[in-house]
């Protein structure tokens, strides 16, 4: 299965391979700077290449969205956590 790395980063592809590793083992092979290929090393019973490819595309898109949300909310997450732990004794002030 061919992956365009300008659309899906290597990190996104690797996390999808890990997420779906209960149904197949995939190897990411780099073809050139932009293009990589997932080679199916082992597929569990009940699945075939076609339905796996569909599933992988769906998971890739979900993972991209996760990253987008995570980036979009990063500053507010840091703010919330800083507030949450500012009045605890979890973190020692070394200053």
């Amino acid at each position, binding site marked *: 299965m061919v992956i365009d790395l300008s659309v899906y980063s290597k990190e996104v592809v690797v996390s999808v391979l890990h997420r779906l*590793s209960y149904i197949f083992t995939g190897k990411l092979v780099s073809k050139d700077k932009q293009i990589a290929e997932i080679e199916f090393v082992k597929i569990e019973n009940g699945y075939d290449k076609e339905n796996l490819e569909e599933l992988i595309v769906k998971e890739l898109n979900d993972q991209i*969205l996760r990253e987008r949300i995570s980036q979009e909310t990063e500053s507010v997450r840091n703010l*919330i*956590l800083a507030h*949450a732990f500012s009045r605890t004794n979890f973190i020692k002030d070394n200053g």
Partner: protein
Amino acid sequence: MAKFLNKEEFYKDNQKYSLLPFKFSDFDKDTKILSNMIGEFQLLPNSTFEDFVNNNLTNDNSLYSDLRDKHFFTDTNTSVALDLLPIKIRTKYQMLSNFTALHIFVVSLRCEHSCPYCQVSRQSQDKNTFDMDEDKAEKALNLVFQSPSENIKIEFQGGEPLLNFEIVKFIVLKAIEIKPNEKNLSFVIATNLALINNEILEFCSKYNILISTSLDGPKDIHNKNRPRKGNNSYEKTIEGINLSRAYLGFDSVSALMTTTYDSLPRVEEIIDEYIKNKFSGIFLRPLSPHGFAIKTKSYSKYRFNEWLDFYKKGLDYIINLNKNGIEFFEHFSQVILKKMLTSDSDGYVDLMNPSGLGIAVAVYNYDGKIYASDEGRMLAETGDDYFCLGSVEDEYSDIFTSEKLLNVLDTTFTKSAPLCADCVYEEYCGADPVFHYATQKDIVGHKPTSEFCNRNIEVFKYLIKLMNESKYVENLFRSWVR
């Protein structure tokens, strides 16, 4: 010319909202589930989800205010989430600053039962080899009171702790004698009750010692699970429960069940047995994969799917009992629901994150070795000492801030573990390094194929589905965590 803008125009101006951090996943083919940093969750139809993440959800959608009230976004009308979220997060992690509260003393490995799934017990009369002595007990106590926790609970386990009741008495009296003023101290004996008698109960009554026993269900299941001479474990347990209640008070006696292959088709009868004996709830526990349970193949006999059916059927039965006016709860669900419906959690070690190893519980074994959890010492009985933190001869700081313990806690933390870090159920889950080490030989675990992970996801989804389908169930579940 129209005097008013049409509705779409109005909401266009009004639709500005800023997402707050959240995770999502498919709940079923038509629905997404979202959860946030404090464990609030929301189900959304796929199309609504699309609108939401693309900033197109309008405030005429009934789910708009649900999402806002649960802190999935802030809009111009309210930014209270930015004040509330930190407070709720702080509450959630407050228990971490309490450090080790539960201290388990394994006072004897000897037992007069020979339960096939038991990981640790020994059918031996050899007191010298398998009993804790006063020297080790006293050294262990000195470590116990160095824990920063204000509340210290000492739990006596075995084997059968009543076979070495002399050391139980010694530890109780010594603990009371050396306890720093500011600490609250409590005691529990985990016993099969076969050896309980008036003298023991008088001591328990005098020092407010609670009893935790085992009740596996109706007589035939219990006696098959728990063979002993005379084949009367069930009769002894019921007698012991009644006698203990008479001495200590009704609520001072609790019971735990062990799920075995024979239990699986009979969950209703098991629950009925608990009701018959006037318990207010039951813990539908999965069989632990540790130690002898793996060795004896009891674990592999039934995979998590069979336990899951058992659990779901049991929970449905309990909900129906409540509908019919019999108040009764299920403990495993209660632990999870607490995380889902409140900012609190009850410190159940298997579902703690960071893992509760060493920081919520410590186990002082009969031989003086200290383990990071009860399962860790069970694993040790099969020859694997991975979770041994040291011995009662060591310094407190060498044990509880050891590189080894910190490394386990750090690497298994679910907020950074593969898959868990992105998991929509992460706030309800736990790290459980011992389970993953025992089943996958890896403390972090390969979560996509982990039975712990698969089982938990199914349980989380089932609880959410039940609440989503019935207001009655949601209210019932809320009553379990109040």
